Protein backbone atom coordinates (compact mmCIF):
# COMPACT_ATOMS: atom_id res chain seq x y z
CA UNK A 1 0.00 0.00 0.00
CA UNK A 2 1.20 3.51 -0.79
CA UNK A 3 2.57 5.78 1.94
CA UNK A 4 -0.02 7.27 4.26
CA UNK A 5 -0.78 10.87 3.37
CA UNK A 6 -3.38 12.50 5.61
CA UNK A 7 -6.45 11.68 7.61
CA UNK A 8 -9.84 11.89 5.96
CA UNK A 9 -13.14 12.81 7.61
CA UNK A 10 -15.58 9.93 7.43
CA UNK A 11 -19.09 10.11 8.88
CA UNK A 12 -20.99 6.89 9.37
CA UNK A 13 -24.71 6.41 9.94
CA UNK A 14 -25.07 4.41 13.18
CA UNK A 15 -28.04 2.78 14.90
CA UNK A 16 -30.81 0.60 13.56
CA UNK A 17 -33.98 -1.22 14.41
CA UNK A 18 -35.29 0.10 17.72
CA UNK A 19 -32.47 2.60 18.28
CA UNK A 20 -32.20 6.23 17.26
CA UNK A 21 -29.97 6.63 14.22
CA UNK A 22 -27.14 9.14 14.48
CA UNK A 23 -23.97 10.12 12.68
CA UNK A 24 -20.54 9.35 14.02
CA UNK A 25 -17.32 10.90 12.72
CA UNK A 26 -14.03 9.09 12.30
CA UNK A 27 -10.59 10.21 11.14
CA UNK A 28 -9.41 7.51 8.79
CA UNK A 29 -5.93 7.41 7.23
CA UNK A 30 -6.16 8.30 3.55
CA UNK A 31 -4.20 6.22 1.08
CA UNK A 32 -3.65 6.80 -2.59
CA UNK A 33 -5.45 3.60 -3.40
CA UNK A 34 -8.35 2.47 -1.21
CA UNK A 35 -11.96 1.47 -1.58
CA UNK A 36 -14.94 2.58 0.51
CA UNK A 37 -15.08 -0.96 1.91
CA UNK A 38 -11.41 -0.58 3.00
CA UNK A 39 -12.41 2.57 4.90
CA UNK A 40 -15.38 0.91 6.63
CA UNK A 41 -13.21 -2.11 7.51
CA UNK A 42 -10.49 0.18 8.90
CA UNK A 43 -13.03 1.83 11.20
CA UNK A 44 -14.31 -1.54 12.41
CA UNK A 45 -10.82 -2.95 12.96
CA UNK A 46 -9.11 0.12 14.43
CA UNK A 47 -11.64 2.59 15.80
CA UNK A 48 -14.90 0.90 16.78
CA UNK A 49 -15.29 -2.89 16.68
CA UNK A 50 -19.05 -2.55 17.25
CA UNK A 51 -19.59 -1.14 13.76
CA UNK A 52 -21.84 -3.52 11.82
CA UNK A 53 -21.61 -3.90 8.05
CA UNK A 54 -21.84 -6.67 5.47
CA UNK A 55 -19.44 -7.91 2.83
CA UNK A 56 -18.20 -11.20 1.42
CA UNK A 57 -16.29 -11.50 -1.85
CA UNK A 58 -14.59 -8.06 -2.10
CA UNK A 59 -14.44 -8.37 -5.90
CA UNK A 60 -17.89 -7.24 -7.04
CA UNK A 61 -19.50 -10.65 -7.47
CA UNK A 62 -21.59 -11.36 -4.38
CA UNK A 63 -23.61 -8.16 -4.11
CA UNK A 64 -23.52 -7.91 -0.31
CA UNK A 65 -21.51 -4.75 0.38
CA UNK A 66 -23.75 -2.08 -1.18
CA UNK A 67 -24.16 1.11 0.91
CA UNK A 68 -25.09 4.74 0.42
CA UNK A 69 -21.87 6.65 -0.26
CA UNK A 70 -22.22 10.44 -0.31
CA UNK A 71 -25.89 10.06 -1.21
CA UNK A 72 -25.41 7.49 -3.98
CA UNK A 73 -25.94 3.73 -3.63
CA UNK A 74 -22.70 1.96 -4.58
CA UNK A 75 -20.91 -1.38 -4.33
CA UNK A 76 -18.33 -0.33 -1.77
CA UNK A 77 -15.76 -3.03 -2.58
CA UNK A 78 -15.23 -1.66 -6.08
CA UNK A 79 -15.72 2.02 -5.37
CA UNK A 80 -12.45 3.90 -5.03
CA UNK A 81 -12.53 6.62 -2.39
CA UNK A 82 -10.73 9.06 -4.69
CA UNK A 83 -13.65 8.86 -7.16
CA UNK A 84 -16.40 9.67 -4.68
CA UNK A 85 -14.87 12.09 -2.15
CA UNK A 86 -16.90 15.27 -1.77
CA UNK A 87 -14.83 18.18 -0.44
CA UNK A 88 -12.42 15.65 1.04
CA UNK A 89 -15.19 14.01 3.09
CA UNK A 90 -17.03 10.72 2.92
CA UNK A 91 -20.47 9.93 4.31
CA UNK A 92 -21.47 6.27 4.46
CA UNK A 93 -24.94 4.97 5.35
CA UNK A 94 -27.06 1.84 4.97
CA UNK A 95 -28.92 1.26 1.68
CA UNK A 96 -31.98 3.45 1.27
CA UNK A 97 -35.52 1.99 0.92
CA UNK A 98 -34.77 -1.02 3.13
CA UNK A 99 -35.14 -1.48 6.90
CA UNK A 100 -31.88 -1.18 8.81
CA UNK A 101 -30.74 -4.12 10.92
CA UNK A 102 -27.87 -2.22 12.50
CA UNK A 103 -25.49 0.52 11.33
CA UNK A 104 -24.61 -0.21 7.69
CA UNK A 105 -26.35 -3.57 7.37
CA UNK A 106 -29.74 -3.27 5.66
CA UNK A 107 -32.42 -5.94 5.91
CA UNK A 108 -32.65 -7.45 2.42
CA UNK A 109 -35.84 -9.46 3.11
CA UNK A 110 -38.33 -7.08 1.39
CA UNK A 111 -36.03 -6.96 -1.65
CA UNK A 112 -35.93 -10.75 -2.02
CA UNK A 113 -39.63 -11.17 -1.15
CA UNK A 114 -40.46 -8.95 -4.12
CA UNK A 115 -38.04 -10.94 -6.28
CA UNK A 116 -40.26 -13.97 -5.56
CA UNK A 117 -43.49 -11.98 -5.96
CA UNK A 118 -42.46 -10.90 -9.49
CA UNK A 119 -42.61 -14.57 -10.55
CA UNK A 120 -39.04 -14.46 -11.86
CA UNK A 121 -38.64 -18.20 -11.47
CA UNK A 122 -38.20 -20.90 -14.07
CA UNK A 123 -41.35 -22.64 -15.32
CA UNK A 124 -40.01 -25.75 -17.07
CA UNK A 125 -41.16 -26.81 -20.54
CA UNK A 126 -39.93 -30.41 -20.34
CA UNK A 127 -39.38 -33.14 -17.81
CA UNK A 128 -36.04 -34.87 -17.17
CA UNK A 129 -37.07 -37.75 -19.41
CA UNK A 130 -37.13 -35.53 -22.47
CA UNK A 131 -34.28 -34.13 -24.57
CA UNK A 132 -32.81 -30.82 -23.42
CA UNK A 133 -34.43 -28.01 -25.34
CA UNK A 134 -31.89 -26.24 -27.56
CA UNK A 135 -31.40 -22.51 -27.06
CA UNK A 136 -30.28 -20.40 -30.00
CA UNK A 137 -27.82 -17.82 -28.63
CA UNK A 138 -28.40 -15.58 -31.64
CA UNK A 139 -32.19 -15.36 -31.25
CA UNK A 140 -33.37 -11.81 -30.42
CA UNK A 141 -35.32 -13.03 -27.35
CA UNK A 142 -32.23 -14.80 -26.04
CA UNK A 143 -30.13 -11.68 -26.50
CA UNK A 144 -32.75 -9.61 -24.68
CA UNK A 145 -32.71 -12.12 -21.82
CA UNK A 146 -28.90 -12.30 -21.76
CA UNK A 147 -28.67 -8.51 -21.40
CA UNK A 148 -30.17 -8.75 -17.92
CA UNK A 149 -28.86 -11.95 -16.40
CA UNK A 150 -25.64 -10.63 -14.83
CA UNK A 151 -27.56 -9.16 -11.87
CA UNK A 152 -25.76 -9.77 -8.55
CA UNK A 153 -28.79 -8.89 -6.34
CA UNK A 154 -26.96 -6.02 -4.65
CA UNK A 155 -30.18 -3.93 -4.35
CA UNK A 156 -28.45 -0.77 -5.55
CA UNK A 157 -31.21 -0.17 -8.14
CA UNK A 158 -33.87 -0.81 -5.49
CA UNK A 159 -32.17 1.71 -3.23
CA UNK A 160 -31.74 4.28 -6.02
CA UNK A 161 -35.41 4.16 -7.08
CA UNK A 162 -37.70 6.99 -5.94
CA UNK A 163 -40.77 4.97 -6.95
CA UNK A 164 -39.76 2.30 -4.42
CA UNK A 165 -39.35 5.08 -1.85
CA UNK A 166 -42.86 6.40 -2.52
CA UNK A 167 -44.74 3.13 -3.12
CA UNK A 168 -44.11 0.26 -0.67
CA UNK A 169 -45.91 -2.20 -3.00
CA UNK A 170 -43.69 -1.50 -6.00
CA UNK A 171 -41.70 -4.62 -6.95
CA UNK A 172 -38.63 -2.61 -7.89
CA UNK A 173 -36.17 -2.69 -10.80
CA UNK A 174 -34.21 -5.86 -9.94
CA UNK A 175 -37.24 -8.13 -9.52
CA UNK A 176 -38.89 -6.77 -12.67
CA UNK A 177 -35.72 -7.17 -14.69
CA UNK A 178 -35.48 -10.76 -13.49
CA UNK A 179 -39.09 -11.35 -14.59
CA UNK A 180 -38.23 -9.84 -18.01
CA UNK A 181 -35.25 -12.18 -18.51
CA UNK A 182 -37.37 -15.24 -17.63
CA UNK A 183 -40.17 -13.97 -19.89
CA UNK A 184 -37.70 -13.93 -22.80
CA UNK A 185 -36.32 -17.37 -21.99
CA UNK A 186 -37.23 -19.95 -24.68
CA UNK A 187 -37.26 -22.61 -21.95
CA UNK A 188 -39.96 -20.92 -19.89
CA UNK A 189 -43.43 -22.42 -20.18
CA UNK A 190 -45.59 -19.96 -18.25
CA UNK A 191 -45.09 -16.46 -19.57
CA UNK A 192 -48.69 -15.64 -18.67
CA UNK A 193 -47.94 -16.17 -14.97
CA UNK A 194 -45.05 -13.71 -15.23
CA UNK A 195 -47.18 -11.07 -16.92
CA UNK A 196 -49.91 -11.61 -14.30
CA UNK A 197 -47.37 -11.08 -11.51
CA UNK A 198 -45.86 -7.91 -12.98
CA UNK A 199 -49.02 -6.18 -14.20
CA UNK A 200 -50.89 -5.92 -10.90
CA UNK A 201 -50.65 -3.32 -8.15
CA UNK A 202 -47.03 -2.31 -7.67
CA UNK A 203 -46.02 -3.93 -10.95
CA UNK A 204 -44.16 -2.57 -13.97
CA UNK A 205 -46.79 0.09 -14.69
CA UNK A 206 -45.91 1.85 -11.43
CA UNK A 207 -42.51 2.77 -12.90
CA UNK A 208 -42.10 6.48 -13.69
CA UNK A 209 -39.06 5.97 -15.95
CA UNK A 210 -36.73 8.03 -13.78
CA UNK A 211 -33.87 5.78 -14.82
CA UNK A 212 -31.94 5.83 -11.53
CA UNK A 213 -31.75 2.01 -11.65
CA UNK A 214 -29.90 2.04 -14.97
CA UNK A 215 -27.84 5.06 -13.93
CA UNK A 216 -26.44 3.43 -10.78
CA UNK A 217 -26.33 -0.30 -11.66
CA UNK A 218 -22.72 -1.26 -10.92
CA UNK A 219 -22.82 -4.02 -13.56
CA UNK A 220 -23.99 -1.63 -16.29
CA UNK A 221 -27.30 -3.45 -16.67
CA UNK A 222 -30.41 -1.65 -17.88
CA UNK A 223 -33.41 -2.47 -15.64
CA UNK A 224 -35.29 0.56 -17.03
CA UNK A 225 -35.39 -0.98 -20.52
CA UNK A 226 -36.42 -4.33 -19.02
CA UNK A 227 -39.36 -2.66 -17.22
CA UNK A 228 -40.33 -0.85 -20.43
CA UNK A 229 -40.25 -4.24 -22.18
CA UNK A 230 -42.67 -5.62 -19.57
CA UNK A 231 -44.94 -2.60 -20.04
CA UNK A 232 -45.10 -3.32 -23.77
CA UNK A 233 -45.61 -7.06 -23.25
CA UNK A 234 -48.42 -6.62 -20.72
CA UNK A 235 -50.12 -4.00 -22.89
CA UNK A 236 -49.79 -6.16 -26.01
CA UNK A 237 -51.41 -9.01 -24.13
CA UNK A 238 -54.21 -6.72 -22.92
CA UNK A 239 -55.10 -5.78 -26.51
CA UNK A 240 -54.29 -8.98 -28.38
CA UNK A 241 -54.46 -11.83 -25.93
CA UNK A 242 -51.61 -13.83 -24.43
CA UNK A 243 -48.33 -14.29 -26.27
Amino acid at each position, binding site marked *: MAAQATAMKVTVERGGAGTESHRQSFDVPAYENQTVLDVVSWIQQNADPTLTYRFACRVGMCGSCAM*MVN*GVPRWTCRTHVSRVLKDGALHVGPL*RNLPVIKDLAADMDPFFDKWVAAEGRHHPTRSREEEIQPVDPAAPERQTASAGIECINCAICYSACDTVAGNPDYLGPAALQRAWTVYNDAKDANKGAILDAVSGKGGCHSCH*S*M*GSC*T*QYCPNDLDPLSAI*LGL*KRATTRRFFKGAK
Partner: protein
Amino acid sequence: MIVARAHPLWLAYILHRLSGLALALFLPLHFWVLSMAVTDAARLDAFLTLTDMPLVKLAEFGLVFLLAVHVFGGLRLLALEWLPWSAPQKTWAAAAVAGSFLVSTTFLLRAI
Protein backbone atom coordinates in the same frame (compact mmCIF):
# COMPACT_ATOMS: atom_id res chain seq x y z
CA MET B 1 -29.32 11.35 4.23
CA ILE B 2 -29.31 13.62 1.19
CA VAL B 3 -29.75 11.50 -1.92
CA ALA B 4 -27.95 12.48 -5.11
CA ARG B 5 -30.28 12.23 -8.11
CA ALA B 6 -29.22 14.79 -10.68
CA HIS B 7 -28.82 12.64 -13.79
CA PRO B 8 -30.48 13.53 -17.12
CA LEU B 9 -33.37 11.03 -17.01
CA TRP B 10 -34.33 12.02 -13.47
CA LEU B 11 -34.16 15.71 -14.34
CA ALA B 12 -36.35 15.05 -17.40
CA TYR B 13 -38.81 13.24 -15.11
CA ILE B 14 -39.01 16.06 -12.57
CA LEU B 15 -39.26 18.73 -15.30
CA HIS B 16 -42.18 16.83 -16.85
CA ARG B 17 -43.92 16.49 -13.49
CA LEU B 18 -43.47 20.10 -12.38
CA SER B 19 -44.43 21.57 -15.77
CA GLY B 20 -47.57 19.40 -15.78
CA LEU B 21 -48.46 20.55 -12.28
CA ALA B 22 -47.93 24.21 -13.15
CA LEU B 23 -50.02 23.88 -16.32
CA ALA B 24 -52.81 22.18 -14.36
CA LEU B 25 -52.79 25.06 -11.88
CA PHE B 26 -52.99 27.53 -14.77
CA LEU B 27 -55.96 25.83 -16.46
CA PRO B 28 -58.74 27.20 -14.18
CA LEU B 29 -57.50 30.76 -14.82
CA HIS B 30 -57.34 30.01 -18.54
CA PHE B 31 -60.94 28.75 -18.66
CA TRP B 32 -62.16 31.61 -16.49
CA VAL B 33 -60.74 34.20 -18.91
CA LEU B 34 -62.07 32.26 -21.92
CA SER B 35 -65.52 32.12 -20.35
CA MET B 36 -65.67 35.93 -20.48
CA ALA B 37 -65.91 35.65 -24.29
CA VAL B 38 -69.34 34.15 -23.76
CA THR B 39 -70.52 36.07 -20.71
CA ASP B 40 -69.03 39.55 -21.10
CA ALA B 41 -67.04 40.39 -24.27
CA ALA B 42 -66.22 43.93 -23.17
CA ARG B 43 -64.72 42.66 -19.95
CA LEU B 44 -62.65 40.16 -21.90
CA ASP B 45 -61.25 42.90 -24.15
CA ALA B 46 -60.39 44.98 -21.08
CA PHE B 47 -58.73 41.99 -19.52
CA LEU B 48 -56.72 41.21 -22.64
CA THR B 49 -55.14 44.69 -22.61
CA LEU B 50 -53.18 43.35 -19.65
CA THR B 51 -51.17 41.30 -22.12
CA ASP B 52 -49.36 44.49 -23.16
CA MET B 53 -47.67 44.62 -19.75
CA PRO B 54 -44.05 43.36 -19.81
CA LEU B 55 -44.63 41.22 -16.73
CA VAL B 56 -47.58 39.47 -18.40
CA LYS B 57 -45.49 39.00 -21.55
CA LEU B 58 -42.81 37.36 -19.42
CA ALA B 59 -45.44 35.13 -17.79
CA GLU B 60 -46.69 34.17 -21.27
CA PHE B 61 -43.15 33.20 -22.20
CA GLY B 62 -43.10 31.02 -19.08
CA LEU B 63 -46.38 29.39 -20.09
CA VAL B 64 -45.18 28.62 -23.61
CA PHE B 65 -41.97 27.23 -22.14
CA LEU B 66 -43.92 24.98 -19.73
CA LEU B 67 -46.16 23.79 -22.55
CA ALA B 68 -43.18 23.08 -24.82
CA VAL B 69 -41.19 21.10 -22.23
CA HIS B 70 -44.33 19.21 -21.21
CA VAL B 71 -45.24 18.30 -24.80
CA PHE B 72 -41.72 17.18 -25.64
CA GLY B 73 -41.42 15.42 -22.28
CA GLY B 74 -44.59 13.51 -23.13
CA LEU B 75 -43.33 12.61 -26.61
CA ARG B 76 -40.07 11.46 -25.01
CA LEU B 77 -41.98 9.18 -22.63
CA LEU B 78 -44.12 7.76 -25.45
CA ALA B 79 -41.01 7.01 -27.50
CA LEU B 80 -39.22 5.55 -24.47
CA GLU B 81 -42.11 3.25 -23.59
CA TRP B 82 -43.35 2.21 -27.02
CA LEU B 83 -40.33 2.19 -29.28
CA PRO B 84 -37.68 -0.31 -28.18
CA TRP B 85 -34.95 1.60 -29.97
CA SER B 86 -31.26 1.53 -29.19
CA ALA B 87 -29.72 4.53 -27.44
CA PRO B 88 -28.10 5.99 -30.62
CA GLN B 89 -31.40 5.70 -32.51
CA LYS B 90 -33.13 7.65 -29.75
CA THR B 91 -30.44 10.32 -29.82
CA TRP B 92 -30.84 10.70 -33.58
CA ALA B 93 -34.62 10.83 -33.32
CA ALA B 94 -34.43 13.52 -30.61
CA ALA B 95 -31.93 15.50 -32.69
CA ALA B 96 -34.20 15.24 -35.75
CA VAL B 97 -37.25 16.46 -33.78
CA ALA B 98 -35.26 19.32 -32.24
CA GLY B 99 -33.85 20.30 -35.64
CA SER B 100 -37.21 20.27 -37.40
CA PHE B 101 -38.79 22.19 -34.52
CA LEU B 102 -36.08 24.85 -34.83
CA VAL B 103 -36.52 25.17 -38.61
CA SER B 104 -40.32 25.21 -38.54
CA THR B 105 -40.47 27.72 -35.66
CA THR B 106 -38.06 29.99 -37.50
CA PHE B 107 -40.34 29.92 -40.57
CA LEU B 108 -43.40 30.51 -38.38
CA LEU B 109 -41.79 33.52 -36.71
CA ARG B 110 -40.86 34.97 -40.11
CA ALA B 111 -44.42 34.42 -41.32
CA ILE B 112 -45.98 36.44 -38.45
